[in-house]
């Protein structure tokens, strides 16, 4: 198992595609902006949601991040790191700001009128598996909410976004060994929390 292996099946030519899109964006091509948004917005939303665990806050953060990225494309230097690393650095920073703002009590409008978010279970599964999937995601959300913000960022970037430890160190602005130890500590804490709630996800999905 390679030490720098990433878990996500990322396109090796992704960075070259980003560079060509960025070059077109700098020329004012609106279609290139939309293509760049479609390429990264889903990942940015997943990262924001994993860190904030709130749909509306995550949407606000994604919008804020993308507006900042489009306005600051001339500041991006490909020599210093990949576009995705730069994007995640901005996202993590905005999520930290949003978490600070969350100290003020707020009530989501959707909770007042009884709306709920879209189910995230795969649509092609049976209802039992979908329920088990939703329960597993809710348990994982509770476990992530119990983690400290630094450990949560580390584990989400590692397993949720598939970054290498070197990329994590760039995003979190810390030494690589610090990123490794945060992942180790988060793994240990999550294991104890997940064992406490007795979710037994492995058995559920292996039997489904």
């Amino acid at each position: 198992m390679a030490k720098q292996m990433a878990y996500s099946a990322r396109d090796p030519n992704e960075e070259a595609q980003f560079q060509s899109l960025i070059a077109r964006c700098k020329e004012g091509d609106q279609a290139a902006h939309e293509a760049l948004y479609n390429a990264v917005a889903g990942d940015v939303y997943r990262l924001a949601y994993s860190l904030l665990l709130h749909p509306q806050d995550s949407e606000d953060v994604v919008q804020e991040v993308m507006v900042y990225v489009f306005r600051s494309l001339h500041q991006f230097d490909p020599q210093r790191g990949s576009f995705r690393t730069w994007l995640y650095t901005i996202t993590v920073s905005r999520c930290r700001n949003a978490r600070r703002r969350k100290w003020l009590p707020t009530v989501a409008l959707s909770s007042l009128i009884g709306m709920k978010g879209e189910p995230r279970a795969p649509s092609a599964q049976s209802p039992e598996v979908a329920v088990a999937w939703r329960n597993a995601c809710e348990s994982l959300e509770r476990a992530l909410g119990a983690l400290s913000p630094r450990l949560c960022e580390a584990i989400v970037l590692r397993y949720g976004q598939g970054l290498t430890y070197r990329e994590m160190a760039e995003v979190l602005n810390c030494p690589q060994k610090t990123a490794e130890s945060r992942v180790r500590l988060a793994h240990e804490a999550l294991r104890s929390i997940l064992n406490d709630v007795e979710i037994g996800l492995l058995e559920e999905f292996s039997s489904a």
Partner: protein
Amino acid sequence: MYLKVPFSRRQATLSMRCRTIRHQLKAYVTDQLSQAQRLRLAKHIAHCESCYAELQCELATVYELKRHLPALGQPNAAQLARIWQGVKAQTWQKPPRYTDLRPASALLTLTLTLMCAAFVFRGSAAVAAPLPPSPAIVRATLTPIFTETPDPLGNAMARPTASLTALYANAPSAAPAPSARKP
């Protein structure tokens, strides 16, 4: 949170080698061991059932995280479209320019200036102008109140001849009549 992980009795009875391996298991499942360390760990696990069971637990946790964390917070198309509309509005929408409103604002400023000036000068003229005399006062000043009449006793003291009651009757009464106070 890390410090709250219980140090079980079973772990306290482990050999020194097993304790070292348990510590390395967490590093192993998070891809933080070198090739030589992984080989040593594999040799130990091959003949230690308790460490192998512990490795299975660690791998199950990693499996759950790898499986569920990427699926956490998958946005739907409506959310992404809503965010894109907001991004477009903020990125390309230029701030409103008020060049069309310049003549109107100049006219408004001029009008306000003129109104302020008129108010100031009107107030000062009212303060400087004397109050017009009321008819009662005019009549009272023009009518001699005190006239000298020959006193049979030879007293040269002035006596009022003009009736003061007539003067007061012409003046506006400040207080209402006593009968008006009755309910």
